[in-house]
């Protein structure tokens, strides 16, 4: 996916350009739908999440420039968060994790930093595999299946605080592995 092209499309969508929105949908719709489907597994729910995702993109495109994320990260993160909120919506007392358009204070990382992060990210799978097996699985469970601390604690049969400590160590190890 051409980063500059997607960035230009988002910039035009921020100006309420419907044609650009249509093109953006054609270019990234398949990927975002696949992400929604991966999180929600059911097609009907994924279709609803997909619709919500693009409504957020249309309404918040003007906030994209400020947050310093690469365009695909911004788009995929909105889809992922929207899908997870939908997945958790039926639970009592659920708070949405998604903020409209990912509200991050400006300036975020400079584009250079984001690019570095993107190349770091290519090593993520490798680094996740090098984590102790349970910790890697817990991270994937949290990111791709929207599992909460409570879910993870019962899945790995450990107390909640232990789970939190595990994840904390896992994340630090991951960060170190990725910046090696």
């Amino acid at each position: 996916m051409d980063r500059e092209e997607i960035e230009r499309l988002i910039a035009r969508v921020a100006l309420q350009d419907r044609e650009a929105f249509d093109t953006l949908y054609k270019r990234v719709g398949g990927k975002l739908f696949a992400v929604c489907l991966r999180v929600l597994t059911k097609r009907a729910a994924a279709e609803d999440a997909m619709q919500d995702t693009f409504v957020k993109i249309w309404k918040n495109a003007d906030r994209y420039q400020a947050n310093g994320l690469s365009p695909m990260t911004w788009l995929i993160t909105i889809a992922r968060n929207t899908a997870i909120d939908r997945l958790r919506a039926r639970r009592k007392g659920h708070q949405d994790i998604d903020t409209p358009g990912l509200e991050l204070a400006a300036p975020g990382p400079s584009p250079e930093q984001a690019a570095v992060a993107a190349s770091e990210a290519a090593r993520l799978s490798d680094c996740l595999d090098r984590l102790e097996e349970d910790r890697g699985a817990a991270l994937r469970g949290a990111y791709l299946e929207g599992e909460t601390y409570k879910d993870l604690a019962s899945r790995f049969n450990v107390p909640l605080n232990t789970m939190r400590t595990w994840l904390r160590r896992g994340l630090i190890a991951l960060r170190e592995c990725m910046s090696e």
Partner: protein
Amino acid sequence: MTEPALPPRDDDDFQAAEFALGLAEGEALTVARERARRDPEFAARVALWQERFVAMTDGIAPVEPPKRVKKRLFAQLFPKKRVPLMERLWVWKGLTLAAVLALAYVAMPTLRPPAPDQPGPIFATQMRGDVDDLELLAVVDPARGELALRRLAGAAPDGRVLELWAILPDQDPISLGLLPEGESLRLALPEALSGQVPALTLAVTDEPPGGSPTGGPTGTIRALGTVNEI
């Protein structure tokens, strides 16, 4: 808590990662969200984690969404355009102004002989139905015996024509003629109506080409409106 003590940078980084993963809950979520919104350094940490985690979706191959998703999305974001209220008002005012100017013209003794009637009240209605989007504005000037009509939206169904009717209480509808294709129309009000405009209802039906064969409406009422003094 038995967590080992870590430098504050690690605390911040962990908080940012928890927030990016969606693991923060309750108070912790509220605090992290607020920090992400206000604290640029914290926001940068969150962004970095998002860049890292997003790689977990690299292996997910695109899946073409069904066409209905886009259809619903576009219908939600861009609902079929109705004529906005301000525009309607403008058209309405435009028509009224035209009627007022016409009256002024009529009343100018140097240009015309004195008008038989004193300039009187003007009536108008917005005609709509629930069959389709046909929408018309009608302005009636009883003093001049005129009716002006403007079509805002809609058209005759295929193979049918639109016919305008005047309806008065306890009387059969009176045909005012067929509506031309164009946007606006002016016609003379039949004598029979001149004294009864305040009670007038206007209706549009669809009829076979050439108009109603019976002299009364035979098709579906597609738009309807009762006039009010403006």
